[in-house]
């Protein structure tokens, strides 16, 4: 255990390429990160998998003292010649989140695109981090998935060490600081963290409650958490109570965190190539006193409009609702059906209006106003 390893500070680059594949070993703090030897970082623009062949021969792998791992051939990756990226990646999505009286709504489409190819029409862009925090993701899918898992891990470790759940603000700060060393590289993560602080504490991180949004769902969560609290050790629960009393803020909060270092708190965010379309629909409809049904249909409508106009968003929509009891997930809906349903509804409404017009005007011909 390198307690005196203060030289391996957050953000500092090391020549120790043996650590390149294993960044968070033996860390005294959750923010301990080591960056692989990076002459090529300053010399040439970062290109995925491509290294300056002159540098490769200079790097001598020095195994860390505590390391007992034998690296497979071809590892660390900077030593082996790698293939060039087969296609250029681009980031397209529509995600949104907002706060209202009933908690938070987070919604996203489900299309993963690669510059013109729909790589996956059923991806999941809203990832639960723990029972009271979900994160919407935009940018590179791989980066987002990885960093969300890292964030869940760090939040869980924090919870075990300190006996209370880190607030959304703290989680946002943690994520922003973890992403900071990669600023200027091709890591691309633009996430909104939607969480409820001061909610019921559970020892389990992820509660897969994907049944729908009925009342019995919420009751099920409450009973589950109550039963789990009995398993907490007395020391932790006491600590939790005192810490809980010390918590200043409880309620919904929404943070936008980006890999270029942005961290913003707000009440309404939309991220991605389809976000302009969603923003205008949300701006006109979001109020504090929406009911849960109105808020979910507004979120669905905003994603639907964005997927209608933006080529990189589409397929289905996921809607999550976060309250003091945790998050609940609405069943995934295919937006293609929504398009046809809307056309049907329009036809019906027009027929009704025409009938009403003819009823009012009687035998007169035109229905112009």
């Amino acid at each position, binding site marked *: 255990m390198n307690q005196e390893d203060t030289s391996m500070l957050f953000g500092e680059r090391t020549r120790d390429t043996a650590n390149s594949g294993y960044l968070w070993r033996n860390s005294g703090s959750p923010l301990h990160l080591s960056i692989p030897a990076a002459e090529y970082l300053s010399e040439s623009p970062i290109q995925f998998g491509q290294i300056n062949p002159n540098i490769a021969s200079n790097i001598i792998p020095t195994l860390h003292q505590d390391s007992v791992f034998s690296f497979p051939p071809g590892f660390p990756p900077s030593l082996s010649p790698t293939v060039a990226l087969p296609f250029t990646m681009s980031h397209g999505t529509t995600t949104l989140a907002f706060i209202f009286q009933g908690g938070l709504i987070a919604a996203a489409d489900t299309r993963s695109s690669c510059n013109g190819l729909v790589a996956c029409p059923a991806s999941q862009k809203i990832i639960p981090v723990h029972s009271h925090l979900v994160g919407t993701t935009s940018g590179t899918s791989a980066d987002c998935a990885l960093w969300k898992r890292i964030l869940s891990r760090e939040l869980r470790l924090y919870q075990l060490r300190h006996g209370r759940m880190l607030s959304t603000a703290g989680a946002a700060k943690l994520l922003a600081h973890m992403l900071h060393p990669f600023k200027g590289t091709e890591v691309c993560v633009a996430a909104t963290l939607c969480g409820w602080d001061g909610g019921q504490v559970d020892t389990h991180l992820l509660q897969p409650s994907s049944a729908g949004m009925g009342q019995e769902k919420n009751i099920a969560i409450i009973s589950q958490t109550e039963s789990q609290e009995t398993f907490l050790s007395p020391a932790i629960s006491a600590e939790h109570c005192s810490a809980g009393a010390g918590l200043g803020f409880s309620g919904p909060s929404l943070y936008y965190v980006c890999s270029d270092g942005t961290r913003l708190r707000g009440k309404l965010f939309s991220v991605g190539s389809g976000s*302009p379309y969603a923003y205008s629909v949300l*701006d*006109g409809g979001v109020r504090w006193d929406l009911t849960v049904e109105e808020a979910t249909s507004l979120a669905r409508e905003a994603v639907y409009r964005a997927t209608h*106009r933006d080529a990189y968003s589409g397929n289905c929509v996921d809607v999550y609702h976060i309250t003091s009891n945790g998050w609940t997930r609405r069943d995934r809906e295919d937006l293609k059906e929504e398009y046809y349903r809307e056309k049907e509804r*329009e036809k019906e409404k027009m027929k009704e209006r025409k009938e009403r017009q003819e009823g009012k005007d009687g035998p007169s011909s035109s229905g112009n106003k």
Partner: protein
Amino acid sequence: MALFDVSGYKNHLELRGNILGTGVRHFNFGTTNQEFAVPAGMDPSGFLKSCSREGQGGVSIDLNHGTTTLAFKFRHGVIVAVDSRASAGSYIASKEANKVIEINPYLLGTMSGSAADCQYWERLLAKECRLYKLRNKKRISVSAASKLLCNMMLGYRGMGLSMGSMIIGWDDKGPGLYYVDDNGTRLSGRMFSTGCGNSYAYGVVDSGYHEDMTVEEAYELGRRGITHATHRDAYSGGVVNLYHMQEDGWIKVCKEDVSELIHRYKKGMF
């Protein structure tokens, strides 16, 4: 004439031939005056690219289509709504620029892109429409007017023009709406929105549009589209200029400040 010989007066066409020579790219639009002859070998768009941010050192003249304009057809005609902010980079050059050109009482043109290009070419279009009416004793159709503008753009394609405009009118075929672009794109459609705020306008108009709207509903929708776009887009703002193209010509409906309109539409949460 003898006087011409004595005074040394030369016909302007002759003079032109002497000055410009034969190796010149001409824009022959069927008129014998006013053309822009570009010397052979000059590359305006390459020059412009070097002046923009991606080009070499320091100079940054970005021609963004910094505006929001929208137009949509519905049962009772065509609604045209535009903002009024003219920006030069990050400087707001005018907060009440006029982005709709009233070509004649039954034709309107909107402007987005480079203000100079739009104003010049649309005034030229107005001139051509008037000449058409005088020659043929009937109004020009919207389709023909948009085609004239499109051909003007094609004559200078690749030379760095920046114009995204919509031609709106009412002719024998009914209400007409065409989108014309500096690339030479010409599209007929039911709804268009141009400028960098267009995506915000699309979201609003798509969700509020139905074929048999009343006139008041259509006015509200046009206003809302521009207002929401100006709220989120930095390069749009000022006032909403709203026009309604009817069968017997266009009327100007209103000119309202977006900073007041946004309070009506945002329902007071933020």
